[in-house]
Structure formats: structure tokens, C-alpha cells
């Protein structure tokens, strides 16, 4: 990417990922059921997320796509009434295994949220937060390097390089979202989950973030939930269609959008409902 990138751990992971570029399964859901109290939100979902690909999840509101996404880094654990059964693996290791350290899992599976949520701290501190709590750096220069690299990877560095100490909340919506992506990259995850990352952004900012997602695919595995069919078509290689808590079908994006197997998918992508 540039001179900074190759010096960091993230950069090295990137290289390795590119070297063994294949469609290996990165994460896999097997018979995933999710309950919110009495109400079941997901029914027996079986879904693979392939390495170095963007997997899009589409479907009408309330279909369970965000719920599934939040299972992938166990963010649902923060909701008291939420219960998950079945098996989700990351690199063939069940993340719902009692021995798994949730905190470490979330460092490996980063997340970007629907609404940009930078901390009320400076831009630099927003990025440095993750590396610091995980002890990824020994020195100040290391940390600064991670800050710069992450911002560069998120395509934000040029815009903010003169004001790294300005509050992150002072950026525009699109910049804030890219800051959040940079923040996620800084902890060197292998998977990045994105929950409707562009729904609060204008078309220009959306285009920039989509471009970024496409670039990030080289180094990371990405799962994205989106309401925009065009977005799914533009950024993803595989698309999963959810409906009423069921996984309707998952296939190559081209196939889903040109020749879906299921009528519900057909109806949804042609705008008949949703």
C-alpha cells in the first residue's frame, strides 16, 4: 500500500493473507438460533464467510441479519435477554466455547456500527484506544505509527493529518465513519463486521466508504449488513438473503442479483417488498 503499511504487524498479516489468497472458510455458522427472551430471532442459520471476501447480508427490516452479524463477535452478550445456540467458528474454533475470551475475540473480529460512534476524544486517541488496551505497542513511536497506518488504510490520513489532536466528534459524518473503520483496523483484526455502515451517510461519503471496503478486502475478511441492494451488488462477492429470521439463500453476488433461486429473494431485489 505504502511505506508505512509494510512495517506493521497489520501490514504483515496483510501480506500473508494476500499470499495464500483462497476462498477458505474464515467464519462459519452452524444451526445458529438466537432468542431475545421468548422470541426467536434466528432459525437454524448455516452460513459461511469466506476469507478475503466481502459477504453482504440483505433482507427486509427485522429479518435477523444484524442479529446474526452481532453473533459473530458476541456483541449480543451485552444484551441481557439474548441467548444464542448452535455453533459459530472462527478459523475452525467455536467462539461460543466456554473457554473463549470474549475480549480477545472482539479484538480479532472488529466491528463498525450503523451510526458513526467516535469517542469524545481526539482523532489520535480514538485510534490509539484499541492498541493501548491490548498492549500492542511498546513505545510512543510504535503507537504513532499504528495511528498513521490505520488512518491511511481507512483513507482518512490526508484529510486529518494536520489535526490529529482535534476531537473526533468534530469530523463530518463520512469522516467519522472512516475514523471508526480506522479505529477497528488499529487492533489488527482478521475479520471486520459492518452493520449498515453507510446508512447515516450522504452519497459521496458512501461512495468513499464503499471504495474503502473494496480495498480492505485484500487484507481482511468483511461481513456487511446493508439495506441498499446497490451497495451489496457493488461491494460484495457473496450475498446472503435473510427473511423472517431464516437464511433464504447465500450465493455469489452476481448470481443472487441476476438469477436467484428463491422467489423471496427475487421479490426483494426487484423491490416488490422490503
Amino acid at each position, binding site marked *: 500500500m505504502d511505506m508505512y503499511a509494510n512495517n506493521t504487524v497489520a501490514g504483515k498479516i496483510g501480506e500473508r493473507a494476500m499470499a495464500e489468497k483462497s476462498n477458505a472458510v474464515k467464519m462459519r455458522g452452524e444451526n445458529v438460533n438466537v432468542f431475545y427472551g421468548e422470541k426467536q430471532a434466528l432459525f437454524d442459520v448455516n452460513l459461511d464467510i469466506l476469507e478475503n471476501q466481502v459477504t453482504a447480508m440483505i433482507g427486509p427490516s427485522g429479518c435477523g441479519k444484524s442479529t446474526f452479524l452481532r453473533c459473530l*463477535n458476541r*456483541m449480543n452478550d*451485552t444484551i*441481557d435477554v439474548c441467548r444464542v445456540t448452535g455453533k459459530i467458528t472462527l478459523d475452525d474454533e467455536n467462539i461460543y466455547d466456554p473457554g473463549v475470551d470474549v*475480549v*480477545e*475475540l*472482539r*479484538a*480479532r473480529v*472488529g*466491528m*463498525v*456500527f450503523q*451510526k458513526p*460512534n*467516535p*469517542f*469524545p*476524544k481526539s482523532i489520535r486517541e480514538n485510534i490509539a*484506544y*484499541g492498541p493501548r*488496551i*491490548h498492549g500492542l505497542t511498546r513505545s510512543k513511536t510504535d503507537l504513532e505509527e499504528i495511528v498513521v497506518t490505520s488512518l491511511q488504510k481507512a483513507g482518512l490520513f490526508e484529510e486529518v493529518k494536520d489535526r490529529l489532536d482535534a476531537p473526533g*466528534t468534530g469530523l463530518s459524518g463520512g469522516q467519522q465513519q472512516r475514523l*471508526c473503520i480506522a*479505529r*477497528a483496523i488499529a*487492533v489488527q483484526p482478521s475479520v471486520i463486521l459492518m452493520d449498515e455502515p453507510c446508512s447515516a451517510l450522504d452519497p459521496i461519503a458512501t461512495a468513499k466508504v464503499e471504495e474503502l471496503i473494496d480495498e480492505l478486502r485484500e487484507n481482511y475478511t468483511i461481513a456487511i449488513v446493508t439495506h441498499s441492494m446497490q451497495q451489496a451488488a457493488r461491494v460484495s462477492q457473496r450475498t446472503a438473503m435473510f427473511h423472517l429470521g431464516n437464511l433464504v439463500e447465500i450465493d455469489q453476488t452476481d448470481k443472487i442479483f441476476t438469477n436467484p433461486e428463491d422467489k423471496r429473494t427475487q421479490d426483494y431485489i426487484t423491490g416488490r417488498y422490503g
Partner: protein
Amino acid sequence: MTPSILALIVLALMVVGYILGRQRALSLAKRDGVRLHSLPGYYGQSVALFTAVPAFVLLGVWLFLQPVLIENQISATIPDSAIPEGGARSLVMADVRRIADGLDLVVEQGNISEDDLAVMRADISNVRSRLAEVGVALGSNVQPAVFEAAKSYRSIGKTASFWRNIAVLAAALGSGFLAWSRVRPAMRARNVSETFIRALLMASSFIAILTTFGIVASLLFETIHFFRIYPAKDFFFSTIWNPQFRGGSDLGILPLLWGTFYVSLVALLLAVPVGLMIAIYLAEYAGKSLRSFAKPAIEILAGIPTIVYGLFALITVGPFLRDWIAQPLGLGDSSSSVMTAGLVMGIMLIPFVSSLSDDIINAVPQSMRDGSYGLGATQSETIKKVIMPAALPGIVGAILLAASRAIGETMIVVMGAGAAARLDVNPFEAMTTVTVKIVSQLTGDTEFASPETLVAFALGLTLFVFTLGLNVLALYIVRKYREQYE
């Protein structure tokens, strides 16, 4: 007709106005076949308001001004010779009022007719015993001039009351009729009612503001009075507080301010950490059921009267600290101490800090927590590094509010820390605070116009300035905080 009966009549007119206004709106709309701009009730309401409001305002102003004006007039007619030596004109006027009220009673009971009264003279008939018969006791025999003044006080008062009744009723009927005749289907009656509600709300907030000004003004007035007879330099900078009955007192505020500061400091040192940890636990860790039980339970602490805390300090905490800490360590043998009052006050303040901070921590958006958890932070890392920094300004505001509570507290200090003004660093010594001394100076037997009494106002004003400053600071910080994550 007394003012209350008058008010009842106006209220009755108001009801009539409501009914008439509503009817007129309905019948006009029916006659012209048009739609009413507002619901029919609003037309009735606007007539009712125009009937009652001007009448009540007039009544209020009249009731306030009438006694003042009449008294000035009567007071001017009393010759200086009728005022006893060393007495004041205001005391004579008080007599005039009492005699006038007494005469009202005499007439009411039928002991004497109005006509007889008009020719009655104080130097011939025994007014004093006559009044005593109806239960009005006078200190001395009535002087002719005073008696005449009382008679004219009565007659002027009667005339004024008569005109008052006429004026108020005229205002009610006049403006009510005007409002009634203005009722048209197109009239925007909703807006009239809206304007009235706004004015009502504004007037209510005005009362609060005016009261504050009133309090400050009364404090300020007496304080200026105090500084005329006692040097301000000694008050603010002297380290001795030693009021004397016969004058020549040392009235230095420093020992009292020190006591206030010291007790508040001890209280805050207890209340802030404990309160904050409670808040964090309740907001971040506690489950719903525990929280719904624990929060009200802690808030009960805030509902305990401070005198009860004072008793707790006096009979439990004070002796305990003395027997187990102060005496073994050789730090004194007083059960009243800064520590006693401070600790008990700290307990009192815990719910202030915890409850406000809990609300503030809850106000930090969930997206901040999600963001932090999503990066693999643990709960306590999230609290330390994200939640607390975001909530800090609000928490500082909460602490400052608790501090101004601590500074103004009296009962706990009287019972826990004693009443000895002293500049000392030993927290097991008895000390006292500004508020305690305000009470003891004002309730003493000294003359009101002496510096020993008036100093209470200077103390009060100083305290007011301090707590006002703290509150302004707290509000400023809280307001700044609100803009944080927008």
C-alpha cells in the same frame, strides 16, 4: 363586602361568562352557517378569562395599595403632640388600627350605633373600657387626636372598600362584556387561551426569580447596615470570633469559613468516592431487578431529615470516634468534632452524588459502549477510558451541587461538630461553621441593631455568594458537557 366574597362573585361571573361566550359562539356559527375557528369551549374560556383576570389584578393591586395610602394620609393628620415621648409614629399608627378594628367590633355587636359613634369623643366617654368589653385591650387611655384618627381611618377605609367593590365588579362586567361582544366564529379563541397559558407560566417563573432577588436584597440591606457599624476589614480578615453581649466583639469570619470548609471537605471525601462507585455499579454492572431495588433504597438516605442525621452524629458517631480513635491516638476527648459532622454529612450526601452521577452515566450513549466493546475492551476499561471521561463534566457538576449542599448544612454541624469557632487542623476537635453561627447570632438576646446580630446577615450573604458561585460553576460545566457528543 369583604374581599373574599368579592372574589367569589367574580368567580361566579367568570362561570357565567364562560357559558355565555360558548353559547354566543355556537349560535353565531349556526346563524351564519360557518365553522368555528376553535372548539366552542375556547370562546367560553376567553370570555371567562377577560371577566376574571382584569378584575383579580385590580383587586390585588387595590388590596396592596389601599392600606399604604390610607395610612400615609391618616398618619399626616396626627399631630406630633399626640405621639408619646420616645415613641414612634408607627406605634401610634398601630394603636389607630387597633382602635379602628375595635370600633368595628363594637358596632357589630350593637353596643353603639354608627351615628352615636360619629359624635362620640374620647375625652368624655371611656373608649378604653368600651373596647375592653369586646376584647380589644389597649395599653393606655385613648388620646382625642388618636381617637379621631381612628374614626377617620374607619370612614376612609369604608369608602375605599365601597369604591373598590364597585371598581372590581365594573372591571369584571365591563371587560367580560367586551370580550363577549367580540366573540365571532372567526375569532381565534384558541390563541387567546394559548397566550393566557404562556403568561401564566411566565408569571410563575417570575415569582421564583423575584423571590431570589428579594432574598438577596434583604440580605444586602442588612449587610450594608452591619458594615456601617463594624469594619469590613476585621470581618473578612480577623481570625478571632468572639461575640460579646455588651459590644466590643471580635467578629472575624475566618474561623467559621475554615470550619465550613473543613467539615465540607471531610463530607465530600467520603461522599464522592462512595457515591461515584455506587453510581458506576448501578449504571454499568447491576442487573435490572437489583437496580430497581437499590436505587430507591439509596435515595431514601436523601429523604431523612438532617436533624435525624444530627441525632445519629450526636449519640452514635461522635462517642464512637472519641472512644475508639481520638482518645487512643491522643487527638482529643471531644465527642463533637469535625470528623463526626463530616462523616455523617458525607453519608447524607452519598445519594446526591450517586443518583445524579448514575443519571449522567446512563446518559452516555450506548453507542460509546458498543464502540469500546467492539474493540475488545473489558467493562472496566470501557468505564475508565470511555464512559467516565465522557461523563466527567456532568459528574463534576453533581459533585459541586453536593458541595453547595454541604456548605449550607446546619443541623448536622450543630449536633456533630459543636459550636466552638476555632482555627485548627485536628479533625477531632470541635469546630463550627458559618450556618451554625448565623442561627446562634440571630436567636440570641442581643438588640437587633447591634453588630452581634447583624453579623448574621453578613455571614449569610458571604455564604450565599459562595454557594451561588459553586452553583453557577456547576451549571456552566453541566451545560458545556451537554454539547459533548452532539
